[in-house]
């Protein structure tokens, strides 16, 4: 009963916070609701026995990405989103598409169940420590993708600096 109750709370909170995030006119408020949303998602990861990912979720999403958003919102002084003419006015069509997508996904995953196929059971992970297990897999089987990630992070960094420096050269 208790797990269901907690899951219910977190599911409702995540969906509600997501709605709050996307409906705010004030972008700073929106970003702060999103912060709360990410913290709830991190808690959800704890249920799934992924404590390292939960902490990384907070450090990366809350500590880096959202701060970047907040910086930009403040520096560009985008406090209120102003109204502007739109290319396509009708939003009903997009809503229909979204509802259709939701229906499709829900129908397809409604009965989803998987068999535990791997060797990483909860007891095993608890015994070894999630960080260690994840690190072992990451650095043994997925070294190349991990190194690629470094490249994936490096290129945008260079690109961001180039884009932001452009004005100064003139």
């Amino acid at each position: 009963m208790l797990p269901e109750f907690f899951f219910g709370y977190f599911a409702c909170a995540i969906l509600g916070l997501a709605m709050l995030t996307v409906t705010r006119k004030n972008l700073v408020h929106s970003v702060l609701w999103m912060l709360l949303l990410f913290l709830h998602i991190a808690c959800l990861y704890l249920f799934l026995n992924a404590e390292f990912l939960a902490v990384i979720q907070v450090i990366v999403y809350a500590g880096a990405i959202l701060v970047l958003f907040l910086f930009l919102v403040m520096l560009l002084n985008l406090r209120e989103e102003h109204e502007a003419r739109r290319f396509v006015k009708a939003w009903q069509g997009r809503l229909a598409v979204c509802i259709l997508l939701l229906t499709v996904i829900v129908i397809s995953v409604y009965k989803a169940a998987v068999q535990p196929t791997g060797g990483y059971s909860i007891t095993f992970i608890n015994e070894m420590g999630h960080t260690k297990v994840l690190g072992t897999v990451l650095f043994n089987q997925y070294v190349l993708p991990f190194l690629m990630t470094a490249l994936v992070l490096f290129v945008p960094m260079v690109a961001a600096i180039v884009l932001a420096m452009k004005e100064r050269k003139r």
Partner: protein
Amino acid sequence: MIPLSWYLMLGAGLFVIGMFTFLVRRNIIMMLISLELMLNAVNIMLIATSHYMQDMRGQILAFFVMAGAAAGVAIGLAILIAAFRNRESANMDEFDLLKG
């Protein structure tokens, strides 16, 4: 034990919220935020599936998704700054000239 499908449906809900926002809101920052929501929805699904399959690959993938999200946001926001310098606006619909 919570069934896996609950997690998947939660992820689906979050994904659809993000997607709808991406389609409807025209503010670039809002669109980037909804992009993050969608990535998070995918991450929830990946980690949940990984947990129920007792396989670490899903979590590794989620790890990479986070790295990708960080990279995406960095480049997206840099483009926004460059665009904002030209148009003084963060509204997608106002970027309607080929010369920028």
